[in-house]
């Protein structure tokens, strides 16, 4: 990772750390939500960007983490973070393991659809059966605590904790990308056949990536449930699977900071088009602006937001200065 990229990432985290000082509770809430989506996007980046596995069912793992948080919490007393968080991550990872084991037998568009199928199964489980609260969802009555140190009921504490989790996941995935495991995944993405020809058994690597990705998505789901105190089946819907896919493509595939940028860009674009201050009465038609922006981003930003500085450099300084396109981990 070159210096400019490290500095960029460091700046982003520093800005996020200082942000609560300058805004009120709505701003803190909003950015907590965006950071949770960023963790969610990072989990998908591991699958799509690093390993080349296009999963259209990521929302299921997100939703399972969220539902586990509510269903496992005791009624009437604040659960301890120490066991609730790992339990939720494990629940999602377990479902991801099962889904991965079965789906990885298919390829291409069929793989995409099988992952969707398994996500829809989870969706209908909570939507139609009394397991979840049906379409009305279920409520988390008491937010988790870490002894007397952390009470996630307070929004600034939750913000700080989410930021910590985001930094942790980012760092973990960066290290993973540079390890042998990460290199193997990159090899699988570029040419799986060749990897197998050199003696690599690719299936366990793909399955491991799938499971880790599911666990991280579960972490994001857990945080979301804690933030809103409310979970409902739409957290597992294909709309959300689609939205997180959009986020990482928008940000730029193959780069961890792409997931970060994409989550922020997607959420902020929504806020922008929804704001009545800018659009007045037309703000209720905000989907139009968002849709047009997404289409425009594919036409004008083929490598996502991450590729924007490169594109500008080409425009300003001529074609010869375009560096070799190389997909780095971060």
């Amino acid at each position, binding site marked *: 990772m070159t210096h400019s990229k490290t500095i960029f990432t460091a700046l982003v985290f520093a800005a996020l750390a200082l942000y609560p000082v300058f805004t009120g509770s709505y701003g803190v809430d909003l950015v907590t939500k965006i950071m949770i989506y960023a963790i969610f996007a990072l989990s998908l980046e591991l699958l799509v960007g690093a390993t080349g596995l296009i999963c259209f069912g990521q929302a299921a793992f997100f939703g399972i983490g969220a539902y586990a948080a509510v269903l496992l919490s005791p009624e009437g007393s604040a659960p301890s973070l120490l066991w609730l968080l790992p339990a939720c991550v494990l629940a999602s990872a377990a479902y991801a393991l099962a889904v991965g084991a079965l789906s990885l037998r298919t390829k291409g568009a069929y793989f995409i659809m099988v992952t969707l199928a398994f996500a829809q199964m989870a969706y209908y489980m909570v939507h139609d059966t009394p397991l979840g609260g049906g379409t009305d969802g279920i409520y988390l009555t008491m937010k988790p605590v870490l002894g007397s140190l952390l009470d996630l009921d307070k929004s600034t504490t939750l913000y700080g904790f989410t930021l910590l989790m985001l930094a942790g996941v980012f760092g973990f995935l960066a290290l993973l990308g540079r390890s042998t495991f990460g290199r193997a995944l990159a090899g699988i993405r570029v040419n799986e056949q060749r990897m197998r020809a050199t003696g690599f058994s690719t299936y366990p690597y793909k399955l491991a990536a799938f499971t880790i990705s599911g666990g991280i998505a579960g972490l994001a789901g857990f945080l979301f449930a804690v933030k809103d105190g409310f979970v409902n089946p739409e957290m597992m819907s294909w709309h959300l699977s*689609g939205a997180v896919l959009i986020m990482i493509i928008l940000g730029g595939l193959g780069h961890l900071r792409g997931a970060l940028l994409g989550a922020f860009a997607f959420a902020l674009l929504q806020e922008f088009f929804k704001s009545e201050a800018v659009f007045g009465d037309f703000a209720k038609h905000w989907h139009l602006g968002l849709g047009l922006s997404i289409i425009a981003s594919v036409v004008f930003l083929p490598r996502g937001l991450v590729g924007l500085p490169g594109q500008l450099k080409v425009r300003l300084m001529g074609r010869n200065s375009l560096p070799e396109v190389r997909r780095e981990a971060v």
Partner: protein
Amino acid sequence: MDFSIFLIQCLNALQYGLLLFLVASGLTLIFGIMGVINLAHGSFYMIGAYMAYALAPIVGATLGGGFFATLAVGVVLAVLLGYVLEWAFFSFLYEREHLQQVLMTYGLILVFEELRSLLAGDEVHGVAPPDFLAGTLALGDVMTYPVYRLFISGVCLALALGMYFVFTRTRLGMMIRAGSTNREMVQSLGIDIKFLYRVVFAAGLGVAVLAGMVAAPVSSVYPNMGDSVLIICFVIVVIGGIGSIRGALLAALLIGFVDTFGKVFLPQAAGVLVYVLMALILLWKPDGLFKAG
């Protein structure tokens, strides 16, 4: 469950399955022949339904026609829309990666929904079937079956047969099938592949719009109605085999029956059943039931 009730449920399942086939056939053509993942396909269905609602008074006033005139006008408009949309938007997607197609067509869904909101409002609307089709047939002692639903099944079946005929017995069908297996070869044979693709796209869109128009009296016309149809269509296309019309028909009927009888016998599991079915079929036949063509 006595026999007449079973028969009625079979008719329900058939009608649902055939309607799904109509929408899914367009999707499998576009996906199979042009390799484009089109998330906006559900929006075409929605456009059809809203056209049935919005065009009926206009057609009645200007052309003096009734239901069939509205259908005809709607199909003509749909084919025109398909032509323009392909030329202006979709032709850019052929060379792109699947993920970019996903992104662009997702944006298109949002744009279509808001256009719908701006042009037709946000309320739920009913569409009345034409009077001569609005009656019922007595089936069994208690229940009657709406004639209009039989009409829907009839239309879908007729279109299915028409498509089969075009694909297997005409030159155009032959070109389309060839284009789906080897695009460059077809081009080098002097066939205008761009024109071919435009025709296929317009046909796919037209069929989806027709499905929406025909279904409007039974489904009502409401915001986001394309959503539920979209996902089921992808399931059908994948189960049937991408690019296979035969496969889409079989898969659609299968889903129609599983869904209808599932709702009756296992209402809590009805939603999951369709996806369990898809997962099982794909694990057995990872490329779907039939090959393209």
